[in-house]
């Protein structure tokens, strides 16, 4: 089933076409990576798909439903979730509370119940807390549950954001550079985490610079350059595409790609 489809998606900012006629057709249950040099529009693409930017042209379909122009919260309620390149952690809340917010769209109490602290609220808090703790355990942060989120190390914060995004039970998860700033050990952990997320039936779309991770984990890869599609296919197809190798993987990158398959 095609879970995410875009058709001639385009947006321009002050005369610069950040994304120009991009077509995506992502099958559910896959790991789909979007790569390209800095400025090629990867994060802009994410922002378009997650409703933060409105496209000037083209359409977006989520699980067959036309969702162009919907706001991020409307998309979240349709099963979309994402992480951010520049972490958007709720730094004043505890680690556990951060993930509890991830459960928001599944919470069912109203403002009056909340103000009066009906028993339903206590039960809801309990349920949310449990689910959040489970999500934290998956990313290995269960021990830090009570700590203020702002006190965590960078790598842990990346995992926290993933836990938070996963806690909302999405069908489609957009990960914006989950391995950025991570050492090889941490990247390996991210690799394992993504695989376990996909095993749970969540489709993962990845924006990444780490070619090793991308080539190892992706089912399909989409290469962007200057806001346009340069190539699309399996990792093998993409890395052997002459134009891609020459312009965007670069000498170093293509060597990495070769190593990833050894």
């Amino acid at each position, binding site marked *: 089933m095609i879970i995410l489809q875009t058709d001639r998606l385009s947006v321009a900012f002050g005369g610069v076409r950040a994304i120009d006629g991009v077509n995506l057709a992502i099958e559910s249950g896959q790991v789909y990576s979007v790569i390209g040099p800095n400025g090629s529009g990867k994060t802009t693409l994410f922002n378009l798909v*997650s409703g*933060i930017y409105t496209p000037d042209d083209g359409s977006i379909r989520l699980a067959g439903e036309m969702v162009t122009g919907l*706001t*991020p*919260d409307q998309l*979240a*309620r349709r099963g979309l*979730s*994402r992480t*951010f390149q520049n972490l*958007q*952690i*709720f*730094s*004043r*809340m505890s680690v556990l*509370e951060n993930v*509890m*917010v*991830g459960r*928001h*769209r599944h*919470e069912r*109490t109203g*403002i009056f*119940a*909340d*103000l*009066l*602290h009906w028993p339903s*609220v*206590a039960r*809801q*808090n309990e349920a*949310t807390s449990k689910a959040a703790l489970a999500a934290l355990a998956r990313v290995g942060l269960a021990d830090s549950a009570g700590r203020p989120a702002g006190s965590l190390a960078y790598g842990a914060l990346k995992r926290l954001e993933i836990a*938070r*995004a996963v806690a*909302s039970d999405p069908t489609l998860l957009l990960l914006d550079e989950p391995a950025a700033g991570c050492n090889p050990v941490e990247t390996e952990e991210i690799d394992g985490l993504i695989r376990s997320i996909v095993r749970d039936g969540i489709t993962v779309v990845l924006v990444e610079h780490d070619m090793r991770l991308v080539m190892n984990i992706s089912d399909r890869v989409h290469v962007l350059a200057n806001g346009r599609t340069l190539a699309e296919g399996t990792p093998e197809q993409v890395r052997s595409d002459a134009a891609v190798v020459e312009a965007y993987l670069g000498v170093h990158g293509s060597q990495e790609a070769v190593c990833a398959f050894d």
Partner: protein
Amino acid sequence: MRTLLEIRLLPALAVAAIVIVLPYFFPSAYYFRIGALVYIFALAVVGLNLLMGFAGQVSLGHAGFLGIGAYSVVIGPVYFGLPSWLCVFVGATVSGAVAFLVGRPILRLKGHYLAVATLGFGLLVAIVLTNEAGWTGGPDGMSVPRLALFNWQVRGSDAWYWIAGTTLVGGFVLALNLMESPTGRALQAIHDSEIAALVLGIDVARKKLTIFVISAMYASVAGSYLALFNGHVTPDVAGFLRSIELVAMVVLGGMGSIVGSLVGAAVLVVLPQVLTIFHEYEQTLLGLILMVFMIFLRRGIVPSLAATFAGRRR
């Protein structure tokens, strides 16, 4: 479950204890008056704190709601023959409705744009109250019919001390409940990162509006009490200076600290009483306090104290 209850409502219990115990130390009836005023303002400050400290929005015109509440208990009884206690609720409803209507467009704004929009709102309320003399008695205001409950005319600072104190405890309970609820978490999330909140499915606009309405109703009830207690109301109750006083109380006590609301209100109500001889210095002092705290002690009294104690324990 029992322990959770205690921790969550601890500040409310503490306030209740203070309200009950304090009168034993009062040398004269005058102190009941001060206490009543402190609790009345603290109620408004709790509401404003939920909006500013907790949800991260700003309102520099909150006295506008104080004014709506205050004039409700004049206009209702005098022109419509309604009992005063009912008008407290009517005022809160009107304030909530006004907050809803005004909040919808302006809460889309952020930072200094929101600040100025709320400022403009507060000033408009004050201007309307000053000009519509037919309803409001104009710049000199009107006298407020005393509150009557079941044939008992409520007068006297001690009666109001207990009424205001009890209401404050109730206000604390509601606020503390809110903070540990799904809505509370959503509001805190909005404060820390609106975009992440959106992406997690939180209807940010609706949540902001909700807290704006709630904080307006807190202020309205406080305004009603103020008018009933003083027996007289003027448009100044909704004025710019009053709005800034409320903000100063939030800042002083600690943004986001519900307990701090009481501290902030206490300091800024008691100080002018202590300095009655220096009444003319009131504005200078208010301005100075605001500046000093926003520059050096931005967290406010209570969070700063809490941090020092937390530091010492380690």
